[in-house]
């Protein structure tokens, strides 16, 4: 391994170093200053995030197993920013709860290992690397979902996640083996050359898709979502819905657009049906939710349905709109989860009805929540509107007007339940509203970053243009 390959794997290696440093720190930090592990981890991850922004060349390693290019690099940075914001938002929770139980370091190690798995997954050049990355990204999260050991629901969430994800990975692996059987290779570059539509390869595609569909929580692979989100600690629910989903969408996009492009006439019909089912089921189930975490779970299922509108067209425009939408979605959803976490940490309340009258006691938090929800709903001038609009343009550019129409109907349905939360916060007056409280610096910083993202990403157009240029490799 020479210096060039080190630079190519910069993300992975620095993150590995961070993990190792944290293990050393765990041993050397005195018990009286337990909290400093949180500061250290956030600091190290911040440096890692900044280091990730240095430019990179397009190349591959290990005989094509690991590859990277501008787009993959950019997406790793998006994941980094997401995780950094997430760490900031959970900083207080970690200090007050987790570190006190002496499991702070493990939290970071598990979380970063999962992120490392995602790096390998999206950088994969063959199905072996992809599968290893997939497994590495899922298993630590299952442990994290069960992290609040005192809560029964948390253990339940962990078990549910590990069982269903093991099944999903197994199904996916089965699909990969069929693709291997038809093409005789697991390398992406070789498969593109020889793959044709045969019964076996189509079955392989479907099974492979099912595994990733589980991670993105597409209907009908979504059943785990709400229960796991509800039981898991909020930062892990947030991680699952933002980072994990984003990475899975990205690798699915790469594989569909490059490796399985010859089967496009098959998977575009598949995506068409799944998009409609996902949007409707996600939205209709979200209507009746009382718990904020379950509410956001179904909302994130519905959002995944919208993402498919960009995936379905399979070209540069599709790539650009999907990546842009995921970026916007990272900020919007993190803002929403951040507010839920801030309130839950101070008061332990997680229901929509608990939010009644929140604006009169905590105006800033309510405004952040409102912006986040408007962004998720797609109301201008916040970023979510642009993300959705561009996805619709993408789908319409290939003539999917009916699909766009169904999607806009769903936008209206979704607006209803997002407004229910706004109604609770702004319209209702109640005497036992959550009293005023001040969050600590980490949480505030985490929320401010998301708000800046929500407000600026849409209006500031050069970002989209940058993404569009990076997407040229998928044309």
């Amino acid at each position, binding site marked *: 391994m020479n210096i060039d390959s080190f630079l190519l794997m910069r993300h992975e290696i620095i993150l590995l170093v961070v993990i190792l440093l944290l293990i050393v720190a765990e041993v050397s930090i005195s018990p009286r200053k337990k909290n400093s592990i949180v500061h250290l981890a956030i600091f190290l991850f911040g440096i890692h995030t900044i280091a990730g922004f240095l430019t990179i060349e397009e190349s591959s390693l290990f005989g094509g197993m690991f590859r990277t290019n501008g787009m993959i690099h950019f997406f790793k940075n998006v994941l980094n920013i997401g995780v950094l914001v997430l760490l900031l938002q959970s900083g207080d929770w970690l200090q007050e709860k987790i570190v006190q139980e002496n499991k702070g370091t493990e939290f970071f190690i598990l979380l970063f290992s999962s992120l490392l798995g995602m790096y390998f997954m999206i950088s994969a050049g063959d199905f072996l690397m992809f599968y290893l990355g997939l497994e590495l990204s899922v298993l630590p999260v299952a442990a994290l979902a069960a992290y609040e050991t005192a809560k029964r629901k948390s253990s339940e969430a962990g078990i549910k996640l590990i069982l269903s994800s093991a099944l999903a990975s197994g199904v996916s692996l089965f699909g990969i083996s069929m693709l291997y059987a038809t093409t005789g290779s697991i390398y992406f570059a070789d498969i593109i050359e020889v793959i044709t539509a045969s019964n076996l390869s189509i079955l392989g595609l479907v099974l492979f898709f099912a595994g990733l569909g589980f991670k993105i929580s597409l209907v009908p692979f979504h059943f785990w979502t709400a229960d796991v989100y509800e039981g898991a600690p909020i930062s892990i629910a947030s991680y699952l819905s933002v980072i994990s989903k984003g990475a899975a969408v990205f690798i699915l996009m790469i594989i569909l657009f490059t490796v399985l492009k010859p089967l496009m006439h098959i998977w575009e019909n598949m995506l068409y049906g799944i998009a409609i089912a996902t949007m409707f089921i996600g939205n209709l189930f979200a209507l009746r939710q009382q718990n904020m975490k379950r509410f956001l779970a179904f909302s994130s299922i519905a959002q995944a349905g919208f993402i498919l509108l960009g995936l379905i067209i399979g070209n540069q*425009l599709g790539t*650009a709109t999907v990546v842009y939408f995921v970026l916007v979605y990272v900020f919007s959803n993190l803002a929403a989860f951040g507010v839920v976490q801030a309130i839950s940490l101070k008061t332990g309340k997680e229901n929509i009805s608990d939010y009644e009258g929140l604006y009169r006691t905590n105006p800033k938090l309510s405004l952040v929540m409102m912006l986040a929800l*408007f962004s998720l709903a797609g*109301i*201008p*001038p916040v970023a979510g*509107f642009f993300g959705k*609009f*561009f996805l*619709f*343009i993408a789908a*319409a*550019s290939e003539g999917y*007007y009916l699909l*766009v*129409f169904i999607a*806009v*109907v769903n*936008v*209206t349905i979704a*607006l*209803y339940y997002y*407004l229910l939360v*706004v*109604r609770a916060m*702004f*319209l209702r007056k109640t005497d036992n509203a959550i009293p005023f409280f001040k969050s600590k610096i980490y949480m505030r910083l985490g929320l401010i970053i998301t708000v800046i993202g929500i407000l600026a990403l849409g209006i500031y*157009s050069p970002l*989209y*243009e940058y993404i*569009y240029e990076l997407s040229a490799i998928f044309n």
Partner: protein
Amino acid sequence: MDILSLFITVPILTILALVLSKGLKQARLISMVGSFIQLGMSINLVFAYFSERAINSDIMVFVKDVVWYKQFNIHYSIGVDGISVALLLLTSIVVLAGVLISWKIKDLPKEFFVSLIVLSIGVYGFFISLDLFTMFVFFEIAVIPMYLLIGIWGSGPKEYSAMKLTLMLMGASAVLLVGILGIYFNSNADGGALTFNILEIAQVNIPLDAQKLFFPLTFIGFAVIGALFPFHTWSPDGHASAPTAVSMLHAGVLMKLGGYGVFRVAMYLLPEGALDWSWFFIILSAIGVIYGAFAALKQTDLKYINAYSSVSHLGLVLFALLMLNKTAWNGAILQSLSHGFMTALFFALIGMIYERTHTRDITKLGGLLKVIPFISVIYVIAGLASLGLPGFSGFVAEMNIFVGAFQHDDIFYRIVTIISVSAIVVTAVYILRVVGIMLMGPVKNDSYLKLERVTWYEKSGILLLLIPIVGIGVAPLWLSNMILESLQPFIQGLL
């Protein structure tokens, strides 16, 4: 900063100042100053427009174009013609009057004025946009504050009304979005690049089947906010629950977005579709005209009466636009303006009556002319303007509409025109009925004898709205000319 972008930046600055302000007194002062400056700007724009028009014969003047999203060819593109200038003037007058009428708002004053001004940004932006994407953005910005405005400061079943209004209007904008995408992806039919620019698309011959498919989507998308029957049901509930200033802005300005959008986007860009579908929408709007008038006849709540009256009057706007001739179009724009001032005035007066008597039920009111003469006299004047008495703006508008509509000499047009004209009679009945029951007769309740006098801010708000009503009625020619000039490109495109 160009003369038009100021219409976006001044309200934004007002909002920033409001965010920093404390208490009711500062908030209302800032909003008043802000909307006063906007009024000044729009009056200045009228004069600037006339002097620019003398030397510039483009379709749009004061055009400014900045590339926003290069890949999609989305521009921040603005410009005005006579129609938009007139509507901008309407908006700024109604906004200022609305701020004055809300002088004593108690609950969360800062947030109230911020939402009101966000709404006005949406409306200003909509009227100056030449780019479909920007136009759509501003359209939604205008709609969404209504949810908070009605939901927080409204009365009665406010949560229900606010949700109904928002969902129906946003649902309509969702349909509109499909229509706009349809126009966008057909804007290269002549071999050019895809574009959202209205003026460029107008030069393109969009294929006939695309026009027929996307015209109804675009038309309905806009017409819902213009209270097209049967999609008008959000409007009476919304008006009845909204606080006074919001009803004024909503009926006076927001609903005009519908007619303007229908004209500027649906009909201008998809002329073949308009010809093909006009009979269908003429029937719907004629039903709206009649239905609104009869529904108003039966109501006892003052706000419902005016809300249904708006359905009827705005039905007439869509009706006139679909008549596809110059006179009727002129009438439609004049009717938009006239109705804007008139209905805002009505809602202001209703708000003042309600504040004093705590009821909007006309059967419980009586003899108000004796106890609050100022309000009552103005109410009579507004009523007379609404039923189209010569000398007021309503007459000029309706005259043009029906003269235009009668120029078609086939049986279908004759019948719908005659049916719509008959609504004028019904209008007279429901206006005079309210005047008779509420203003004349004995004072029904002793507590009404000691009603609060009209304050300076209420008076100035009312006069602000009354002056244009009389002004347009007495001297319509300058406005009419301004509009007629601007109709030229539509005539070339559609007739």
